[in-house]
């Protein structure tokens, strides 16, 4: 049961990252690799703030803010300095590696002695139910784990709702349109470049937030923790789209899909690890999965067209 709760918690934390990737990859249609750096940035900024005795929620916000700055930088490089989108992301990500080391002062910051959201959550739950272990379906579960799960779930639900609302505001709709059809949104009097910068800031803010919570859950921030995170987020989105249907473009469904996708993916990974998957192979498996998810539909389409005499792509 601890394993399940752990997978759920981890999945929910990473779903914040998936929401960030959802914004850049699906809404802005911007292949943003900054993610790998900004998640670490969020984590390291939060860790340093916590170590220096900052309120855990403020520290979390700080991590989110740091992520936003990273996204803003990537956006600026692309829109105003006319650097290719992938390269802008790589530049910022690379720069962030050094910046993260600078922020942390070393490659790993443990926060064993600082108060984190986990501690705050545990304290909250203990107030209402002062036992060390709570039984769920007959399984005893440590209060700390359950409290963290509930807190993260609440946070994710809050952020998800907020994001959904944001995407329906005047400026949110403009961001979506800028991603889908820059020509169209310019004709409506919006500078699509700033929409892109803004969207990337929001996206990386969510990634930073994810990093901030992750660091507190794990109890440390590590300069390596971001590697492969963008692909991870992508895999989650793809699974989510498989769950809610790829054709769905309602913002609510997209967000739900990303959330469910991440959790499911995390569960699958937990099961695989349990069955003996070498943790070192995790990133390879993730990459192969994304590859397959991107390529298989195309092959299926081709085969479909052959079988159904060219009707496979109708309506595309």
């Amino acid at each position, binding site marked *: 049961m601890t394993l399940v709760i752990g997978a759920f918690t981890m999945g929910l934390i990473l779903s914040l990252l998936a929401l960030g990737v959802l914004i850049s990859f699906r809404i802005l249609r911007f292949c943003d690799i900054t993610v790998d750096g900004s998640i670490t940035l969020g984590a390291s900024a939060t860790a340093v703030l916590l170590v220096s005795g900052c309120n855990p929620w403020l520290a979390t916000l700080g991590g989110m803010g740091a992520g936003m700055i990273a996204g803003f930088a990537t956006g600026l490089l692309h829109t105003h300095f006319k650097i290719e989108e992938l390269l802008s992301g790589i530049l910022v990500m690379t720069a962030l590696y050094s910046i993260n080391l600078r922020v942390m002062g070393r490659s790993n910051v443990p926060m064993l002695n600082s108060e984190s959201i986990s501690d705050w959550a545990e304290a909250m739950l203990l107030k209402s139910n002062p036992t060390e272990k709570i039984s769920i379906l007959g399984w005893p579960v440590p209060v700390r784990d359950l409290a963290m799960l509930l807190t993260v779930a609440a946070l994710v639900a809050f952020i998800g709702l907020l994001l959904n609302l944001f995407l329906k505001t005047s400026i949110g709709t403009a961001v979506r349109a800028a991603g889908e059809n820059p020509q*169209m*949104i310019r004709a*409506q009097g919006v500078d699509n470049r700033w929409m892109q910068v803004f969207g990337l800031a929001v996206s990386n803010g969510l990634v930073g937030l994810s990093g901030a919570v992750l660091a507190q859950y794990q109890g440390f921030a590590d300069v390596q923790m971001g590697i492969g995170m963008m692909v991870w987020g992508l895999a989650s989105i793809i699974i989510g789209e498989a769950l809610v249907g790829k054709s769905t473009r309602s913002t609510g469904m997209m967000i739900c899909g990303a959330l469910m996708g991440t959790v499911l993916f995390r569960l699958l990974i937990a099961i695989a690890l349990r069955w003996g998957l070498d943790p070192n192979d995790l990133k390879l498996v993730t990459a192969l999965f994304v590859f397959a998810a991107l390529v298989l539909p195309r092959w299926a389409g081709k085969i479909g067209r052959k079988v159904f005499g060219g009707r496979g792509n109708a309506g595309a």
Partner: protein
Amino acid sequence: MLELNNVKKTFFPGTPNEVQALRGISMKLEDGCFAAIIGTNGSGKSTSLNAVAGSFMVDSGQIHLDGHDITKWPEYRRASLIGRVFQNPFAGTAAEMTIAENIVLSMRRGKTRGLGLALNRRIREEIKERIRPLNMGLETRIDNPIGTLSGGQRQALTLLMATWLRPKLLLLDEHTAALDPKSAAQVAVLTKEIIEREKLTALMVTHSMQQAVQLPHRIIMMHKGQIVEDIYGERKARVKVADLMNAFDRVRRRDLFDASVAEQVLPQFA
């Protein structure tokens, strides 16, 4: 009023692909005037429109619209004065967003966009009210993605969006060219209706002579980056498709009349 003053644009200057797309375009479009630009391929008709819209910055010359010198304004800023419909019916709308969301985007054309919800019941009613006269049954489908509509329906909506807030200038870039004949005719009729009702100043690029004769008040003919004919008033009233074809023919013949022809012809003339 739109005024172009000796506007020039060269693409890829100094390369083998250099194209002198606009070689000094000057024109004045009075308020409430609906003009069509016609011309052969590569004559610069779409380029002129894009120069006004701000898709690129011109090399020299000035563009004034509604008392503003917009020569240096970026495209999105000019959109506060200009409504546009593109040739590609997919270019003017965001396919994955709903009809209502697309329209609400155009309801704030050139205005600030804040964190208020884009759509509310009042706005939704207004949208339904204004798309009902299209008679396309779209008022019941305003929450469907606009990508599920046909090209003709999308183009009609784009036209509606471009004129939702009365623009100082409406730019139509061969906006019926990519549609099937029936939808093209529908959109053409709608264009005329809207422009007449709102008394809009409009500039339309078209390759349809028929359209140029029927729709606008004025016909501007371009060739090789220059205006070669400007037909308005009484002359426009009696112009026929055949006259436009003849005018094209004249321009083409003039190109074929080179120094070697002159050398041949002059001694045989008298």
